[in-house]
């Protein structure tokens, strides 16, 4: 049997890159939501939650409108990189971020908020800047929960289907991620390929879940 593992590796790459990006942005947003009061906080909070509840095709449609070739973002992208963003594997990364970042932001916010405020207050009275307080006190104390959230976000990014197919399409060897490939294999009655990919994804996801559960603080720092 000559099985094409490209979709699997592509999904891994997409999930890895999107997780790195959404961790960066997500932590920042989670920090803002957990610690600051600002105008429009409710709106930001709702906007973060929205991708969790909207149908993926609706999300994909919005994304097409925002990053499509006719949008200003699409035009800027094309001017800079010499090609459109949509229907490339980079578009799949954007889709995966949209699909997984909300989960990460929500969990990271809960993790940051669960750190006993007395530790943060103590650090402040000791003269620590908010920056140092975050990196030296809050983040280390929340790190296990945040790592667990990152692992879950990675798993979710691996599995996106709806948004990906809307903005990245189904181009074998270029944008066909594993979820799309499985759908494609079943559609074209290629059961062997479907089974192999399904098993591989299941095993990987199970492993990630196990890791995430191990990371969830049990006896660890409050």
């Amino acid at each position, binding site marked *: 049997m000559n099985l094409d593992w490209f979709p699997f590796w592509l999904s891994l790459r997409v999930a890895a890159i999107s997780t790195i990006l959404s961790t960066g942005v997500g932590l920042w947003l989670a920090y803002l939501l957990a610690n600051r009061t600002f105008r429009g906080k409710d709106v930001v909070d709702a906007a973060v939650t929205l991708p969790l509840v909207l149908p993926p095709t609706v999300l994909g449609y919005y994304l097409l409108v925002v990053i499509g070739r006719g949008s200003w973002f699409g035009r800027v992208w094309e001017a800079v990189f010499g090609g459109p963003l949509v229907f490339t594997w980079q578009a799949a990364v954007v889709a995966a971020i949209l699909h997984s970042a909300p989960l990460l932001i929500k969990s990271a916010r809960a993790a940051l908020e669960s750190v006993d405020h007395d530790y943060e207050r103590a*650090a402040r009275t000791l003269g620590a800047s908010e920056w140092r307080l975050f990196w030296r006190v809050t983040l280390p104390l929340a790190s296990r929960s945040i790592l667990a959230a990152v692992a879950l976000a990675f798993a979710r990014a691996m599995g996106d289907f709806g948004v990906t197919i809307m903005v990245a399409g189904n181009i074998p060897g270029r944008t066909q991620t594993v979820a799309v490939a499985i759908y494609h294999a079943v559609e074209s009655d290629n059961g062997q390929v479907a089974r192999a990919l399904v098993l591989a994804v299941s095993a990987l996801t199970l492993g990630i879940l196990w890791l995430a559960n191990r990371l969830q603080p049990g006896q660890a720092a409050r």
Partner: protein
Amino acid sequence: MIAVRVKKHYAAARGSAAFTLEVEFRAQSGVTILFGPSGAGKTLTLDAIAGFLAPDDGRILLEDKLLYDGPSQVSLPPQARHCGYVFQNYALFPHMSLRANLAFAAERLPRLERHRKVQEMLARFRLEEVAARMPGELSGGQRQRGSVARALLAAPRLLLLDEPARGLDAPLRAELYEVIREVREGFQIPTILVTHDLDECFALGDQMHILSAGRIVQSGTPEAVLERPATLEVARLLGLYDLFEAEVRSLDPGTNASKIRFGEYELSAPYLPGKFKGDRVWIYVLPERVEAVPRDGRRPGANQIPATLERMIERPHALRLEFSNGLRAEVPRDAFAGGAGTREWLIEYPAAELRAL
């Protein structure tokens, strides 16, 4: 020196009534105690000083530095206030060793000096041997000293302690008092300590302010407050006295004497300044200064009131007797032994101990 004037209003919300904090006091170096029942606003006051709570109005001045000023909207962040804060749970960072905890407070110093200062503080608080341990591996007393040491390393100009002895057993409590006394001697900074434990006020306090429902109801040294509670409210908050209502029958400033009537009995008391004949006054007296003897069928003598024993409560040094008419007396154990089993007693009030509010 610190001068505090803070006002903060909390509107009534679901599950809590409206509350207004309105306190004003000054504190010199030495230990100043904020004493009061739960919900009196003690910790809120501390938090306003430390910068965790934004008051509606007021002014907080620490030495020559304005920490907060309502009208001109000055409010320094906690980082810039230089107030050391010792939390109830000590708040040592659980992911750092004790040494790292201390070093965290001294990070503005160059490396060598930081190391020297941390070492010095560890030695001062007898923590050198456990410096490498994580807070979870320290004993209660070590955690307590570590937390004070860490606060002092940041070179604060004021030390705030939020019920540091709460939930500690007696030996740890004694150890903590020792540490606080050491700080008072060794560091010339004002210390403000919140507590609802009266023993603590006497063990540590140079000055105390009694808070009730967001206001300071009396200030002074603990001894002065004990001798002369200003109002019935304070007397009740202190919870030390026997309180009863009596009528003034006669007053004689010349011989420093008065007569008061409680129920059908007449008692001699010192002159009661500011009272008039016929006034109803609250009399307070410390139960341990009252004597009680078995009645044995005798008629009550001077300043004696007959009473029926309701309850007897064992205390470390004496027995507390509670009588049916609400009066109390504290008698030494051997004095009680003679009257064990008796129900009818005579309570004797030394005239000099009866005071009116």
